């Protein structure tokens, strides 16, 4: 595993061109103003405490309000109650407050916030407002492009509330956490562009971690992914998430993501 990681990281860093359209994290750059993105996110994760798989479906709509501000709404559907049930939804906004761009590099910073609600049962110590908990998250993200390699990092604070109406947040668990992510991305193909119709292939490596603020329990996951950009307008992501380390109770940490996305440019002025 370690060898694989070193090899993969090296592979990324010596790259010729980079990407920052990460799969499980969001870069500091925003979507274009007036554009509308529609995404169908799916994930299938192996249950650790019982047999079977946990399937989540997450339709999302993203809109660029202006060059610095974007909003996104997501819906959470899962098979946890043995049939597909809509369990909640989420509202997300990101404001880019710093951009220093140069010909071959850029550094950008953005602040983001998310509020989600969910009515599912609370079954793990990990706090995850993307499909599991009611709560909010707020943080900052910085993205740097150096010599065509994109590196993005974020820190955020996440707090969980009761999953109303039926499930209270367990008083024995920490209801707030600090999250941190580091993402690397690289364009694999094409080596040289010829037109907009060319499919781009990107590879990414992301690290996602959380520490529960009240008891110090943590986890760290690695997410390698491959991404296809079709016709400069549609996007397909395939990713695998693997737990590297965890001292907290998690119901299904390992599994696959499959995201399909389509962007409409200039929907509004």
């Amino acid at each position, binding site marked *: 595993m370690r060898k694989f990681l070193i090899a993969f990281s090296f592979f990324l860093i010596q790259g010729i*061109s*980079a*990407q920052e*359209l990460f799969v499980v994290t969001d870069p500091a*750059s*925003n*979507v*274009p*103003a*007036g*554009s509308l993105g529609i995404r169908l996110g799916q994930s299938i994760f192996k249950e650790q405490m019982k047999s079977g798989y946990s399937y989540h479906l997450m339709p999302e709509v993203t809109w*660029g309000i*202006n*060059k610095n501000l974007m909003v996104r709404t997501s819906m959470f559907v899962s098979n946890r109650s043995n049939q597909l049930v809509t369990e909640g939804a989420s509202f997300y906004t990101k404001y880019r407050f710093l*951009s*220093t*761009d*140069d*010909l071959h*590099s*850029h550094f950008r910073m953005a602040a983001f916030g998310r509020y989600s609600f969910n009515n599912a049962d609370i079954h793990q110590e990990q706090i995850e407002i993307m499909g599991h908990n009611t709560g909010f998250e707020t943080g900052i993200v910085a993205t740097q*492009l150096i010599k*065509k390699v*994109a590196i993005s990092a974020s820190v955020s604070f996440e707090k969980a509330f009761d999953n109303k109406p039926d499930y209270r947040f367990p008083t024995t668990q920490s209801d707030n956490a600090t999250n941190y992510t580091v993402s690397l991305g690289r*364009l694999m193909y094409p080596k*040289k*562009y*010829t*037109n*907009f119709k*060319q499919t*781009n292939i*990107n590879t990414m490596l992301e690290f996602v971690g959380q520490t529960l603020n009240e008891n110090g329990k943590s986890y760290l996951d690695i997410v390698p992914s491959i991404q296809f*950009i079709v016709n*400069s*307008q549609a*996007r397909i992501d395939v990713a695998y998430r693997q737990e590297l380390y965890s001292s907290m109770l998690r119901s299904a940490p390992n599994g696959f993501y499959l995201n399909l996305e389509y*962007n409409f*440019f*200039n929907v509004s002025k």
Partner: protein
Amino acid sequence: MKNINLKFIGIACLFLITSIKSYSQISKAEIIATGLTCSMCSNAINKQLKATVGVDSVSTDLNTNTFTVYFKKESKIMPRVLKEGVEKAGFFIGSLVITVPTENLKIEGDKTISLNGSTFVLLNEELKNSNGETKLKVYDKGYVTQKEHKKLLKTFSKTASYPLDNEDDYHIKTVI
């Protein structure tokens, strides 16, 4: 006397109208965008520019992120509109070179040229015509990289209007 005055006014008006009509337009703009590496990002700029009123067509070199914009006849687009378009897509202009028919470039006192309500201030000597068209590079904030702009503030410290960042004033040099 009155008659002569009227005639004079009439001729003056006619002159004004025709001169407004021949108010020149930029025929072509070459934009190099910065800070992007993906064709989807380029496409965002491409679509934004294409959707701009007065733009006829856009051709893109994805490897250099160069967008060549051609304008419709009678379009009065000024560089500001192009800058706003690129920034709406989430990026910045690193270089902008506009092509203007040389006949439309009449230097007034103090090395300035008026074009469709905007003022172009010449930063170098004379206009050099080439095939009836002149290429002009814009040096203002937002049309060069941030690093370049910092240096240019020193270089052009003698040009009083340069640091003002008035969005309808453009500081230009001719390009051969």
